[in-house]
C-alpha cells in the first residue's frame, strides 16, 4: 500500500478546529492520484509523485486531500486503483495516469462514475475523438501530432528531403511512426527507412546499417529517455554525417549525461519548461515554469527537475483553476461538484501551465497550441532554445 496522506496535518487541523468537525470534513476536496511510480514508466511516475507532494493543501478556502496510488504502468491496476479511489476514497477528481494504455483503460470508469479525470500521458487517443465517455477526460501533455508537425516543419525549412526513422518497438514508437508519416507527407518529406529497436537492446548495428544504406538527409529517433542515445551513438560510430532529430521523450538531463558529445547539435521539440530560463520574459509560461522548478528543486535537489513532473503540476493547475467555479455548483463530495469541476475545466481559456497555454473547448480537452512547444538543440552539453 503506497498511500500518502499529504493533507494529514490539514485534516487534523480541521478536526480540532472550533467549528463542527463533520462539516469541516465534508468540505474536503479529495483528489485521487494514480501514477506509475514502479514498473517500466517509473522514470515518469517518480517525478510526478514528487510533484504531487508540492501541491497546495488549500484551494479557494477548501482543504484538499491527495491520495497517491501506484499502478506500475499496468492497465488493470490503474483501473482497480481508480475504482478504489472513487468508491472508498470518495475522490472528486482523478489525476493520472502516466502511461497511455492505462489512461485509455480508465476512461470508461471516469464516465461510469461521473468523476472527471486528468491524464498525464501523451497520446491524442485519450481525448479524441470526443464522445460521451471522453467528456469526462482531460489531458495535459502535448499531443504527439503537435510535436511531429514541429519536427517536420523544421526539417522542411532546413532543406531535408529524405528521413530515416527509428523508434521504440512499443506504443511510443508506433504512435510516432504514424504521426510522423502524416506530418512528413504534409511537408513533402519522404521516409526512406523505418526501423524499430527495444529499450534494453545492447546493439542497434543492424538497424543502423540499413538506415545508412538508404542515405537519408536526416534521421529521427523516437525513443524516450537515455536508451534513445544508443541509435545516435551507433550512427556516429558508423560515420553518419546527416542531421539528427529526437523527440521530446528524451528531454531530461540523464539523456545529456549518457549521450555526451555524440548528441551535440541534435534538434528536438520540447515543452517550454525544458528551457524556461531562456524564454523571453514576455512569455507567461516562463514565470510558471521557473516557479515550479524552484519548488521542485528546493525539496528534491538542484538539477533534479524533469519535464514529466511538470505534467503532474499542470494537471493540478487545471484542477485548481476549476475549483472556485465548481464550488458554486455544489459541495465537495457531491455529484454536482464533480460535474461542476468537469464543466469548469472545459471552460478554461488561456490557462497558463508549465508546458503551455491551454484553451479548452467541448471538442478539445487538451487545448494546447504552438505555444506549448519550442524547438531545442543541444549545445555544449546543455539545452539551447532555437529561435
Amino acid at each position, binding site marked *: 500500500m503506497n498511500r500518502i496522506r499529504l493533507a494529514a496535518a490539514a485534516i487534523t487541523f480541521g478536526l480540532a478546529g472550533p467549528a463542527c468537525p463533520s462539516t469541516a470534513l465534508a468540505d474536503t476536496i479529495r483528489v485521487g492520484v494514480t501514477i506509475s511510480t514502479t514498473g517500466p514508466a517509473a*522514470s515518469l511516475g517518480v517525478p510526478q509523485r514528487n510533484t504531487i507532494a508540492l501541491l497546495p493543501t488549500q484551494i479557494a478556502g477548501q482543504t484538499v486531500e491527495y491520495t497517491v496510488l501506484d499502478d506500475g504502468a499496468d492497465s488493470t491496476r490503474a483501473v482497480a486503483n481508480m475504482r478504489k479511489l472513487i468508491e472508498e476514497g470518495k475522490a472528486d477528481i482523478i489525476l493520472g495516469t502516466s502511461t497511455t494504455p492505462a489512461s485509455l483503460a480508465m476512461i470508461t470508469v471516469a464516465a461510469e462514475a461521473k468523476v472527471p479525470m486528468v491524464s498525464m500521458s501523451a497520446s491524442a487517443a485519450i481525448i479524441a475523438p470526443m464522445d460521451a465517455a471522453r467528456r469526462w477526460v482531460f489531458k495535459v501533455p502535448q499531443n504527439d501530432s503537435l510535436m511531429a508537425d514541429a519536427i517536420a516543419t523544421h526539417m522542411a525549412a532546413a532543406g531535408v528531403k529524405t528521413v530515416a526513422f527509428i523508434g521504440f518497438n512499443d506504443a511510443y514508437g508506433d504512435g510516432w511512426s504514424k504521426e510522423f508519416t502524416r506530418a512528413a507527407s504534409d511537408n513533402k518529406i519522404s521516409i526512406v527507412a523505418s526501423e524499430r529497436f527495444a529499450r534494453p537492446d545492447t*546493439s542497434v548495428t*543492424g*538497424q543502423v546499417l*540499413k538506415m545508412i544504406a538508404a542515405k537519408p538527409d536526416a534521421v529521427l529517433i523516437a525513443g524516450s529517455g*537515455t*536508451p534513445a542515445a544508443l541509435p545516435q551513438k551507433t550512427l556516429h560510430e558508423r560515420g553518419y554525417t546527416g542531421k539528427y532529430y529526437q523527440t521530446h521523450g528524451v528531454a531530461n538531463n540523464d539523456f545529456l549525461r549518457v549521450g555526451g558529445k555524440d548528441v551535440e547539435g541534435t534538434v528536438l521539440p520540447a515543452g517550454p519548461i525544458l528551457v524556461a530560463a531562456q524564454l523571453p520574459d514576455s512569455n507567461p509560461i516562463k514565470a510558471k515554469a521557473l516557479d515550479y522548478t524552484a519548488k521542485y528543486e528546493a525539496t528534491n535537489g538542484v538539477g533534479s527537475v524533469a519535464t514529466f513532473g511538470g505534467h503532474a503540476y499542470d494537471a493540478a493547475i487545471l484542477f485548481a483553476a476549476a475549483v472556485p467555479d465548481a464550488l458554486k455548483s455544489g459541495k465537495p463530495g457531491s455529484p454536482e461538484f464533480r460535474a461542476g469541476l468537469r464543466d469548469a475545466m472545459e471552460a478554461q481559456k488561456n490557462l497558463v501551465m508549465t508546458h503551455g497555454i491551454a484553451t479548452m473547448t467541448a471538442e478539445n480537452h487538451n487545448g494546447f497550441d504552438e505555444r506549448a512547444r519550442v524547438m531545442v538543440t543541444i549545445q555544449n552539453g546543455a539545452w539551447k532554445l532555437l529561435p
Partner: protein
Amino acid sequence: MDSTILAILLQDGVVNGAIYALLALSLVLVFAVTRVIYVAQGEFVAYGALTYAALDGGHLPGSVALLGVLGLAGCAAGLWQARGRLDRPAVLRLLGETIVLPAVIAVAAIILAPMKPGVLVEVLLTLAIVTPMSPLLYRIAFQPLADAPVLVLLIAAVALHLTLTGLGLVFFGPEGFRAPAFSDITITAGPLMIPGQALWIGGLTFALMTALFAFFERSLTGKALRATAVNRLGARLVGIPTERAGLIAFALAGFIGALSGVLIVPLTTVYYDSGFMIGLRGFTAAIIGGLGSYPGAVLAALLVGVAESFSSFWASAFKEVIVFTAIIPVLLWRSLRHGPAEEEE
C-alpha cells in the same frame, strides 16, 4: 546485403552472443547443481551494471545497503535452519559469511567510492558487492527447499526475480545508467571496426570459460560440484556437503551475472528492470543447448546473438519474436528425439 554488412553483423552478433553465453553457462551450472532454474540471474546483470555505473560516477551504489540487508536476513535464515544443532564453529562461520564479509565490503565501498579509483578497482569492487548477494539469497530462499520438486524451485525463483526487481527500483531508482567503455581504442580491420569494449567482452568471456573449465576439471571443489550435479544423493553418501555445493554454484552465478552487467553497461543504458530480458536470452540459449551441456549452451548463445543481429537488420520490428520463437522448433525436435523428460528421483 554485401560482405561488409555481413561481417559487421556477424561481429555484432558474436559480441552479444558472448554475454548470453556467460549467462547461459551460469544457468546450466546452477540448474545442474541445485535443480533451480535461476530466473533471477538477469537481476544480477542489472545490479552489476548499475553498481558499476554508480561507482564510475563517484557515488556510493544503493546495492551496498542491499547487501547489508541481505546479510542480516541470511544470518537470521541460517541460524533458524540450523537451530538445535548449533555449535561454535558453525555459528562463527555463518557470522563470518553473512555479517563480517558484507560489512568489510561495505566499508571498502564507502571509503573507495568517492575517490573514483579507476576502472580496475571499480570493477573488482562491483564484483565484490554484487557476487555475495547470490549465495545469501540461496541461503534465504532455496536452502530450506533443497529437496523440493523442480516446479516448486522454479516458482520460488520467479518470486525471487519479482522481489529483486522491486528491490532494484528501491535501491537504484527508476533512471537508467550507462558507463564509459573500459578503453576508447578502436581497431580497424578492413571494413570492420572493432571497438575496445568488444575485445574486452570477447577476451573476458573466453578467459572465464577457460577458468571454469579448469575449475571443474582440476580442482577438488569443482569435481565436488560435478558430482553433486550428477547425483545429489550419491554425492552426499561419499561425503560431499551438497549445501556448500549449492552456495558455490550460486556464488559463481552471481559473479558471472555481475561481470556481464559490468561488460554491457558501456554498450547500452541499463535500468533496474533491464536484466530480465538479457537473462531471458541467456535462458533461451541454455534451453536450446539442452540445459545440461556447457558447450551446447555456448554455441546456442552465439547462435542467438547472431540471429538477433541479423533479424535486427532484416526485420527490426520482429527481432524479439524471431529470437524467442527459435526456441519452439528446438524444443519440438528435442522432445521428438528424446521423448518427454521425466522428473528424476
